[in-house]
């Protein structure tokens, strides 16, 4: 794919051409000092700010927080439903690698069968120009989720900040076309540029302040060796506010509802929803299959770090670290992973050895073991006693099992 140099002076005229008939989204500083991806009304009077990771992802521009699906009108002859035309060409400029990776994740969710019409309409005419991160921020861990700090795929163009200029690489045919269409803004890459970029990429990779062992956590979940006390601890600290889901660039759950606008007209809307809300799974009549905060958090973290991993071979987390910043209870993915990985092994290790021996001997099932471990963590009783109390094994079973394994002098 094509490589070029774009002088920083040329960014504004370049975007003026590129986004002439599109909505242009880029990071802008608000009057409150927040850095947010925003729609740029006038490229000439806006100062695009690529100095930091924006506080929100670009999720809202393809999957808005609230979106009209259609309007309805009722007459004596029935209903008229008028779908909303939701497409518009868009240029997303200055996206961080995590935020681009999140769009790739949303593509998988929304463009499977059946495709989400409203997402597709916006996504199909979207140009993505990303920027690699020369310096990871305090909460970032995209190195652990393999979604940064620089990307190999997913962008149309990717920039690297070389000081007074950007190194520009194209990742798709669309990117090549852009570079060819406006050659006046680009100049060839020199050996020095290549070297400098390589150097910056290396430094970025070694600049992470957090080490979040996402894959270890996945393994421990897969081995069923997460102590229930981890979920319970997190649940005690969760207020169910949904902030983590709203800020999360890969959280795509939504709810649908109608808003009447007059006695005979109204609109059907969808809006972001969060699995930490207690009403998320509650049904009419009141039954709720995911009824406790513990179950809800378990479901949330398992979805992102286990089921997505199993299904897509990568976690449903892009390591942006934003949930770390937003949760005042500390109930974020990084905390969960840290807790899972830091769990005390001693008592647990012994317990699971006995448990595994009993499973191997066909005396208990993994599910029974898990239940017993749960009780063990709650009561502090020895695992063997719990299994005996549950009436699953006898003292002799345990003794025989251990005797088989213990080497005698």
């Amino acid at each position, binding site marked *: 794919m094509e490589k070029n140099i774009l002088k920083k002076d040329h960014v504004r005229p370049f975007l003026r051409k590129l986004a002439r008939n599109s909505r242009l989204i880029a990071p802008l500083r608000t009057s409150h000092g927040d850095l947010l991806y925003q729609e740029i009304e006038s490229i000439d009077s806006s100062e695009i700010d690529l100095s930091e990771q924006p506080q929100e992802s670009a999720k809202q521009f393809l999957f808005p927080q609230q979106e009209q699906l259609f309007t309805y009108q009722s007459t004596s002859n029935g209903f008229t*439903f008028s*779908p909303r035309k939701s497409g518009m060409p868009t240029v997303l400029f200055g996206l961080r690698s995590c935020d681009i990776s999140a769009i790739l994740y949303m593509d998988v969710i929304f463009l499977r069968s059946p495709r989400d*019409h409203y997402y597709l309409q916006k996504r199909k005419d979207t140009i993505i120009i990303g920027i690699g991160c020369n310096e990871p921020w305090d909460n970032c861990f995209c190195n652990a989720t393999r979604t940064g700090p620089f990307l190999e795929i997913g962008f149309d163009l990717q920039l690297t900040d070389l000081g007074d200029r950007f190194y520009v690489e194209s990742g798709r045919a669309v990117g090549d076309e852009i570079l060819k269409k406006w050659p006046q803004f680009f100049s060839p890459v020199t050996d020095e540029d290549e070297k400098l970029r390589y150097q910056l990429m290396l430094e970025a990779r070694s600049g992470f302040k957090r080490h979040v062992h996402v894959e270890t956590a996945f393994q421990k979940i897969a081995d069923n060796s997460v102590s229930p006390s981890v979920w319970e601890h997190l649940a005690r600290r969760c207020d169910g506010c949904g902030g983590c889901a709203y800020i999360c660039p890969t959280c795509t759950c939504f709810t649908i509802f109608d808003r009447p606008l007059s006695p005979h007209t109204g609109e059907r809307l969808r809006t972001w929803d969060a699995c930490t809300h207690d009403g998320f*799974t509650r049904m009419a009549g009141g039954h709720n*299959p995911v009824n406790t905060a513990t179950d809800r958090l378990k479901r949330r973290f398992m979805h992102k770090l286990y089921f997505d991993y199993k299904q897509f071979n990568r976690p449903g987390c892009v390591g942006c670290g934003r949930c770390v910043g937003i949760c005042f209870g500390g109930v974020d993915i990084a905390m969960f992973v840290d807790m899972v990985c830091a769990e005390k092994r001693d008592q647990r290790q012994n317990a699971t050895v006995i448990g595994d021996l009993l499973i191997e001997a066909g005396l208990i099932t993994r599910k029974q073991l898990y239940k017993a471990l749960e009780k063990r963590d709650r009561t502090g009783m020895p695992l063997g006693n719990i299994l005996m109390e549950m009436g699953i094994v006898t003292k002799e079973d345990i003794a025989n099992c251990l005797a088989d394994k213990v080497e005698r002098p």
Partner: protein
Amino acid sequence: MMETGTMRESMRNAVTDNVFMPNETVISEIIEENSTIRTYTLRFTDRAAAFSFLPGQFVMLSVPGHGEAPISISSSPTSTDAIQLSVRRAGRLTSALHSMKAGEYVAVRGPYGVPFPVDELKGRDLLFVAGGIGLAPLRSLINYCRAKNGEYGKITLCYGSRSPSDIAFKNDLDAWQADGSVDVRLTVDVPERGWQGRTGLVTTLLDDLTINNSNSSALLCGPPVMIDAVISKLKESGMDSEQIITTLERNMKCGVGLCGHCHMEGVLICKDGPVFNVRTLENIMGATG
């Protein structure tokens, strides 16, 4: 300039491509099943929007102004060009529906979900176990099997209700008993004056039956506690968990695997279900303890 016919067709494609767009139907008949359950016969006003389905599938029912809810189809695909939905008054949308009259309009989209395995069930004796509104999706399959004269074995229904006056689908129960197509057995939790029938949980009805496990399948739908009890009972009596089939109810907003509400242990109930055999369910639940 596009020719009118083609334009209309391309517009329709644009709309049908959009899974969120519902199709208008008119309520042509309402059957009062009990004090809280009514069966609505819905006819598509645009015949081109009518769809084919199989028992066990559901639709997203729209009452514009009140939103949408997943409702299983309670009629058999063999019956007419309309569909029936049996709806218990439980929340906002269903209350709005219950206040509507024949001739009024609602909308549906679908059909969604995995149906009952109607081909694999051929030739087998079928034991239906239902509680309350749970008979709705099973009613579709029972009538389907009855219409496929001789393709299915003996049909037995064990149906539990809260009280005798709560017994729903009486017209169906009577018709099934009258033509002998279904061996109907009833029980209630709380008897009322004059009730001569059985009292107790639906599981007690199972004690009366001799089930030929090698050639029987069970189809269950009802409250979760009932389902759990019936599953243990059937497994105890030697039925293979693969032959115990149930259909799950979940909060669903889209019905097509996008909204995330019905996600359960890596499975989407709306797309991968709602019909599951118990072996599959145990594997799903057992995957993570």
